[in-house]
């Protein structure tokens, strides 16, 4: 391991976590690695980040990055409320939430919708693979209609689009990327970390073990037959991780060659796309949902939206969780007055 350090004198190792126990080639691993790089490059103090997650392969990730940050790996679907409460503990800290599509779009849907309205200071990553990985490959709510999985049959339902959900619930930062697109993912992660408020990041993160059915949008065959559509798709061969070279720029439609010569097509938002235009974002998402394609990039950004702690206007001179009795317990004199108010 190199002994390079960043501007605050920390080496990459200071941002790493335990060794991953996820499958080789799992998209979640690249996300974890990108988080490490981004935190290193942004010179973040690990102590300034609190990690949160629900339950799932994706939600295991916080163990695999930022070992020097506090974290709470909570309950399935309940990451948002835990993060919401915990971030009041010390409002100087940034939240980094890692969830899955099952965790967020199924059991956690209600909390997900409502955390968007509250806008706490949290990077909310959904590692989206269209399946329940940790429970061995059932459909999640983001699985495309018609997908067939072993022992599950055919999925008859329309998928939920994480970004659209975030957008209409008033999220202040909405973006989508792809686990294999190191460059874009990195820049979006950096944007998310720098955003004051809730940053929802939907990251397509293929499950190499359970979501590799021919009929899946993650599969090669599917890509071949749908190249005309501008889908954000990838074909994952077991135990192979795709990385996309850095010359893939905004607005581009790029054919990515995989090891076996198969091809996928990715589309990025134009560089001149204005993410602060809400109506345009809505229109784009509506169009996408109608024509059934997915966009990657920064879809919407509102840097002005007050965060939850702005709304509650907290004392700032001392972290809330270091505040002592003298400031938390009313003075003894008040007791008498209160009793009088009771009649």
């Amino acid at each position, binding site marked *: 391991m190199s002994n390079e350090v960043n501007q605050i004198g920390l080496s990459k190792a200071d941002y790493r976590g*335990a060794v991953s126990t996820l499958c080789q080639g799992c998209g979640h691993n690249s996300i974890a690695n990108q988080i490490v790089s981004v935190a290193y490059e942004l010179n973040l*103090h*690990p*102590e300034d980040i*609190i*990690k949160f997650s629900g339950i799932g392969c994706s939600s295991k990730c*916080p*163990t695999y990055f930022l*070992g*020097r*940050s*506090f*974290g*709470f*790996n*909570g*309950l399935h679907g*309940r990451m*948002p*409320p*835990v*993060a*919401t*409460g*915990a*971030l*009041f*503990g*010390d409002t*100087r*800290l940034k939240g980094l939430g890692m969830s899955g599509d099952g965790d967020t779009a199924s059991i956690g849907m*209600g*909390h997900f*919708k*409502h955390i968007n309205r509250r806008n706490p200071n949290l990077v909310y990553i959904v590692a989206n693979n269209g399946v329940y990985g940790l429970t061995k490959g059932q459909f999640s709510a983001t699985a495309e209609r018609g997908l067939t999985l072993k022992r599950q049959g055919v999925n008859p339902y329309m998928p939920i689009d994480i970004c659209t959900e975030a957008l209409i619930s008033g999220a202040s930062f909405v973006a989508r990327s792809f686990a294999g697109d190191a460059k874009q993912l990195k820049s979006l992660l950096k944007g998310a970390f720098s955003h004051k408020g809730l940053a929802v990041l939907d990251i397509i993160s293929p499950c190499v073990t359970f979501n590799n059915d021919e009929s899946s949008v993650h599969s090669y065959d599917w890509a071949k037959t749908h190249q005309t559509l501008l889908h954000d798709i990838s074909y994952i061969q077991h135990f192979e991780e795709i990385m996309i070279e850095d010359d893939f720029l905004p607005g581009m439609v790029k054919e990515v060659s995989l090891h076996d010569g198969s091809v996928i097509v990715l589309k990025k938002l134009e560089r001149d796309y204005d993410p602060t235009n809400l109506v345009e974002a809505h229109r784009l998402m509506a169009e996408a949902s109608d024509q059934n394609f997915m966009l990657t990039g920064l879809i919407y950004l509102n840097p002005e939206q007050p965060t939850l702690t702005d709304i*509650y*206007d*907290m*004392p*700032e*001179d*001392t*972290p*809330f*969780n*270091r*505040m002592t*009795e003298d*400031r*938390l*317990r*009313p003075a*003894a004199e*008040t*007791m008498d007055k*209160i*009793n009088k108010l*009771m*009649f």
Partner: protein
Amino acid sequence: MTSEPSSVPQKSSLHDPVINDFSITVGTRNGSGSATSNLTLLRALFRMGIPISGKNLFPSNIQGQPTWFTIRISKDGYLARTEKPEIVVAMNTDCFVQDVKSIIPGGVLFYDQDINLPIDRKDIVCYPMPVKQLVKGMDVPSNLRSYAANMVYVGVMAQILSIDLQKIYQAIDFHFKGKKTAVDLNYGVANASAIWASENLQKGDPYRVEPMDKTKDYILAEGNTAAALGSLYGGVQFVSWYPITPASTIPEELNYYLPMLRKDPVSGKYTCVVVQAEDELGAIGMAAGAGWAGLRAMTSTSGPGISLMAEFTGLAYYTETPIVIWNVARVGPSTGMPTRTAQGDVTFTYFLGHGDTDAIILFPKDPNECFEFGWKAFDYAERYQTPVFVMSDLDLGMQYWMTEPFKYPDTPMDRGKILWEEDLERLKDEWGRYKDVDNDGIPYRTLPGNRHPNAAWLARGTGHNEYAKYTESAEKWEEVMDRIKKKFETAREQIPLPKIDIMDNGSPIGLICYGTTWMAVEETRHILRDQHNIKTDYLRILATPFSKQICEFIQQHERVYIVELNRDGQMRQLLTMEYPKLATRLASLCHADGLSMSTEWLLKAFLKKEAE
């Protein structure tokens, strides 16, 4: 019907006067504004120095349905519910007939004379009241008439029962915070009605009140208000909640008193955050997050919410996260009767969450204890790093109680075992989140924001070792679970101990209760001694896990009756589990029909069991 002075049946006129020892039930419609009048009566009597209790029996809807308010006036200070009122005020046509029926023989009926229904009782004294006329006479603004109408019976009763009009004025003045127009309008109606009564009604009943000095060391308060205040004095920093009857008024009162009590001297901002969550899972989830991050965090709910909080309670238990959870109980199972009271969630809460668990549960008896446990609960939650439940109920939370004044906390905040940067520096690499260094089962924790390189740890509901690292090791799992259990052994004698009262020099019979049933128990004990000369000793449980004093009390008695408001005798079930050797001595005096326990019921049930 006429407003003629009512005819007075013989027998009741022969009565000796009954002074400061009867109860009054007022039957109205909810949303009609009668709450103000009833509260006025209650406060006036209280100001006269007479012990009283007031219980509002209201429906689970918002407006137009029958509602009854019962005031018990007891010179001896017995506040339990009585089953049949001596005096009824009938303002609601819909339940007029049943209201009239409910009066004891020789009792009294005040009624709105516009209710055109026959009164088929010869054994009561009736006072018709020309409500409409009297209000018209006062030219009250049209939209306030039905509201003001309720002041009519206040005035008439004041006259007939000799309630001090001065005190009524004070009560009204307090209620409207001195807002002159409102005060004048309402008192005006009351006063005019009193005058009308003095001129048109002839006292024909034996009931009246006389001033006493038995309330000067008390206040009148609702349990939920006390809980909110106790929490604020406990330094609560984070409250997440979801609306539910009868718990909603805890966070609402908290919001109300926040500006008064928790404006930060330094920053001028509030030092407590109150968040209305999307549901109870969210509410306890936020509280768990806040508690883990080092804030004094609480949530409040009732039965249905407790059911939804089961999974998070288990997470908090196993990650050792402090949370205070108020359960203001209503009648279950299921949605049940949301506006009725019960003690039905005891076993469920005790075993809440899948897997092996333990629970610290506090049982306040009145608003004063709601206040006390309100602040103490945080000390326990942070000291033992575990969820702490405070079990109130609708009767305690939403009714007005004569209770001792709230007492300012007499111990400094106990924040438990928390390590900051300098502590870790001192400890070198010694520290492990889940190590039992003090042999009391309680480990040391660090909080987010702690910048020491060793401080960080990842909380998880999955298997972990003493360093909070993930493990599936059989030994580690058992080790951690046994150590956690030890915390509750440590807690046993450090949390509120039972209150015991031994009569004279003791009795073979023991009575055990908890929460609000003490009212019926204490009155029953005196009746048993005075009228049946049966002596009984008495223990009130304030908390689980049980103190050994409870065991000793049971050992010292041949027969121990556990009094509670549920069908299955839930506390008896827990005591039986805890003390198998003493199990045969325990018997239940319990039932649940949504009403608070009456002395009549308890006395009957006790004598029946004793006869067996």
